[in-house]
């Protein structure tokens, strides 16, 4: 069996980094192709619980993985990366935002409390005693970044990885003390996988030094 | 709802508020329905066709039509207002019925083309109704109704909009068709000639009721309504005697004498009024005089000129007692005595 396909269901925010990881994984596993199905963590978890085909699931938070565990579709959950919050502004920071306090009187956005990034944002803002109201509570971190990139918002609270991915389109302004409230990315092999061994290989690769290097380049923190 | 089998058409139906009709016709009979506008003629015909709800019964060869859906009644209907399918050619309009009744396409098309040819519009077979003149479309509508070979043929003012030649040709055509047709035909018309030449029964409707019913000759000779009298071109005068019995008097416009002063003689047969209109009518001038009731009088052109009988002129009319026919209004309902 030299031709194998591994189907990985992953949170949309992992799109870029997982494609890089897949390239390396395929290079070291001859005859293996990795196929992705990206979506929102919750949606993917629900689909997996409903029997969606796939070998591995990777979500942006532990809560959605809990859905899958509850459905009995997975046994072992592995944390493979963490992420921290940062401020981003449109390139060049036209509104001159240096700290969270500068958010007052600007049009800024963050994630809604129901999304993982929103829970973290609330925690960070509370610990800094910030009372400024955002213009919008975005449905996820991607949408938050989007508003900033498009110039609709003067600032947004997103993950460090998003700031890296956005490149020159945004200017990142780190938040002091944000490391104290990280979020974890978790992954698990799925019961419906036809090739549990290969699935485990992929998970092992994620936490291997080679995998870590790729994740770090994209801005992810260590588990 | 059904009765022991008896062929022909036995109707006793009511279209609430619009018409109440009793009728009995043998197979092959042609019934002319006449009456003023709004008398209920179309309502009656549409009720037979199943397009208007009606109470009562309408037995055709023993089956009550009123219990059948419009499609199952197997009637042929020329609508007042045509309702040709706008998206189909003349040919397809005519072929629609036969095809709906299960005939093959070729067969239906042949029947349709033959009918169109008969009605002088075979060369227009490919045209859509919009591209036909009014009279051409009317001929298509008649052809469409005949093409289904219905058991009951309902013709609601089929000759409207036809030119004289076409109307005459169609009357001849229809007469031939009807002669060999053993279904029942109901023909609504505003023309005396149709009733007199095509029908063997005349049904006179007035304000939703049957006012008279009999052979064309009987109805023409003893009209019971003003409308019929006007249709056949005679005058009709009603009198109610002391006992409440109504008597009718008819006389021809030719028998009316017109004078400018009150004539001598019996008071009952003279009227005063002003001329409402004066029109050429054959060799004579026909006056319509506004009296109670309005009467027609024919005078010679010379007399009209001498007396100055232009509209507005006050005149006296009289008629000799010998020239009138008198009969009771109950004197009706002589069924087709062919």
């Amino acid at each position, binding site marked *: 069996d030299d031709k194998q396909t591994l189907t990985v269901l992953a949170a949309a925010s992992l799109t870029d980094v997982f494609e890089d990881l897949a390239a390396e994984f395929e290079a070291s596993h001859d005859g293996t192709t990795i196929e992705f199905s990206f979506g929102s963590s*919750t949606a993917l978890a629900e689909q997996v619980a409903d029997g969606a085909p796939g070998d591995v699931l990777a979500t942006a938070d532990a809560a959605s993985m809990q859905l899958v565990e509850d459905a009995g579709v997975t046994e072992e959950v592995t944390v493979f990366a963490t992420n921290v919050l940062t401020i981003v502004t449109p390139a060049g920071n036209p509104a001159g935002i240096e700290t969270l306090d500068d958010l007052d009187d600007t049009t800024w956005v963050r994630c809604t409390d129901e999304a993982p990034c929103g829970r973290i944002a609330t925690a960070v803002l509370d610990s800094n005693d910030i009372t400024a109201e955002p213009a919008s509570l975005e449905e996820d971190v991607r949408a938050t970044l989007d508003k900033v990139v498009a110039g609709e918002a003067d600032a947004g609270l997103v993950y460090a990885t998003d700031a890296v991915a956005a490149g020159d389109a945004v200017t990142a302004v780190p938040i002091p003390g944000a490391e104290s409230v990280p979020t974890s990315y978790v992954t698990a092999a799925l019961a419906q996988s036809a090739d549990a061994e290969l699935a485990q290989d992929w998970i092992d690769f994620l936490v291997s030094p080679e995998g870590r290097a790729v994740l770090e380049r994209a801005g992810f923190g260590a588990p | 709802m059904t009765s022991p089998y008896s062929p022909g058409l036995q109707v006793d139906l009511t279209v609430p508020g619009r018409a109440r009709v009793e009728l009995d016709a043998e197979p092959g009979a042609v019934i002319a329905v006449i009456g003023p506008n709004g008398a209920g003629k179309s309502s009656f015909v549409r009720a037979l066709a199943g397009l208007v*709800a009606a109470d009562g019964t309408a037995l055709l060869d023993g089956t009550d039509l009123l219990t059948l859906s419009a499609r199952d009644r197997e009637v042929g209907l020329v609508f007042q207002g045509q309702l040709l399918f706008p998206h189909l050619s003349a040919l397809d309009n005519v072929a629609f019925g036969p095809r709906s009744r299960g005939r093959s396409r070729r067969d239906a098309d042949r029947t349709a083309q033959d009918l169109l040819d008969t009605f002088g519009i075979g060369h227009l077979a490919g045209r859509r109704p919009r591209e036909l003149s009014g009279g051409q479309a009317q001929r298509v509508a008649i052809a469409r109704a005949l093409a289904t070979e219905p058991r009951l043929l309902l013709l609601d003012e089929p000759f409207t909009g036809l030119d004289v030649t076409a109307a005459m040709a169609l009357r001849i055509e229809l007469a031939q068709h009807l002669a060999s047709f053993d279904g029942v035909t109901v023909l609504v018309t505003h023309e005396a000639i149709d009733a007199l030449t095509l029908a063997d029964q005349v049904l006179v409707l007035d304000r939703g009721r049957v006012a008279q019913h009999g052979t064309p000759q009987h109805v023409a000779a003893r009209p019971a309504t003003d409308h019929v009298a006007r249709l056949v071109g005679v005058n009709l005068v009603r009198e109610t005697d002391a006992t409440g019995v109504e008597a009718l008097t008819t006389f021809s416009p030719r028998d009316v004498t017109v004078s400018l002063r009150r004539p001598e003689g019996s008071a009952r047969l003279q009227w005063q009024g002003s001329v409402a209109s004066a029109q050429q009518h054959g060799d004579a001038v026909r006056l319509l005089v506004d009296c109670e009731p309005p009467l027609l009088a024919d005078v010679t052109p010379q007399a009209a000129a001498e007396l100055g009988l232009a509209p507005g002129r006050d005149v006296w009319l009289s008629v000799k007692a010998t020239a009138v026919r008198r009969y009771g209004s109950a004197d009706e309902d002589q069924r087709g005595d062919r």
Partner: protein
Amino acid sequence: MSPRTQSQRSHRTDPLGRPPLLLLVPAVLAVALLVVPLLAMLAAIDWRTLPTSLSSAPLRTALWLSLSTSTAAMLVCLVLGLPVAWLLARVDFRGRSLVRVLVTVPMVLPPVVAGVALRTAFGRTGLVGEPLLAATGFAFPFTAWGVVLAHTFVSMPFVVLAIEGALRSADPDYDAAAATLGATRWTTFRRVTIPLALPGIVAGMVLGWARSLGEFGATITFNGNYPGTTQTMPTLIYVTRQSDQDAALALSLVMLVVSVAVLLLLRDRWLGTP
């Protein structure tokens, strides 16, 4: 189909004959296809948590915002879309079919792309939005006006197409008759064309309203999500789903019930048997 078995009464209601199975069967299938998922959803709702889910303040604000912005969008669609539909159906002008296609195109845009397109046009740095902001200080995004704009953009094509179809099915000869009686095109439009095509126009409006009510992607992309100004029901449901599936289902139920109620009311008003 024997005449005896059919009652006089049934004849009355259906003089044209019984609806054929060839039409009844697919119709029943279609209704089942549309209704079964709704029923299944109802069955999946956790009725115990329902009262708590429904007593939340965000629900009331979001519901009100949804209803008002959808209604506003529907009116805008009517005022702007009806004339387009009329032009497309009744006036022969150059480029008519191009205009028709251009009007149709926003329908095929995925909602998010529609949101992006709106932003590039009416956003703070957009083609129209930037001059507008400079001139008036007003910007659409993050406001209820922005929601109405997004709803309108997404729903108008449906409204235009539905009404155009209805106008084309109505007889244009009446327009000609009105013209010979001295009616201007405007009078004809108002007093003849509109009344004759009314059922189709009402259908188009219902279409537009319902489409707006369910619209989510374009609105959230263009306007974000803030309770009271831009958080409509679909947005609220979406974000709630990320943390609490049952609550999200309960919210969906509210939306269903409210829209059924509104539609039933509208029907009685507008489409009651005349």
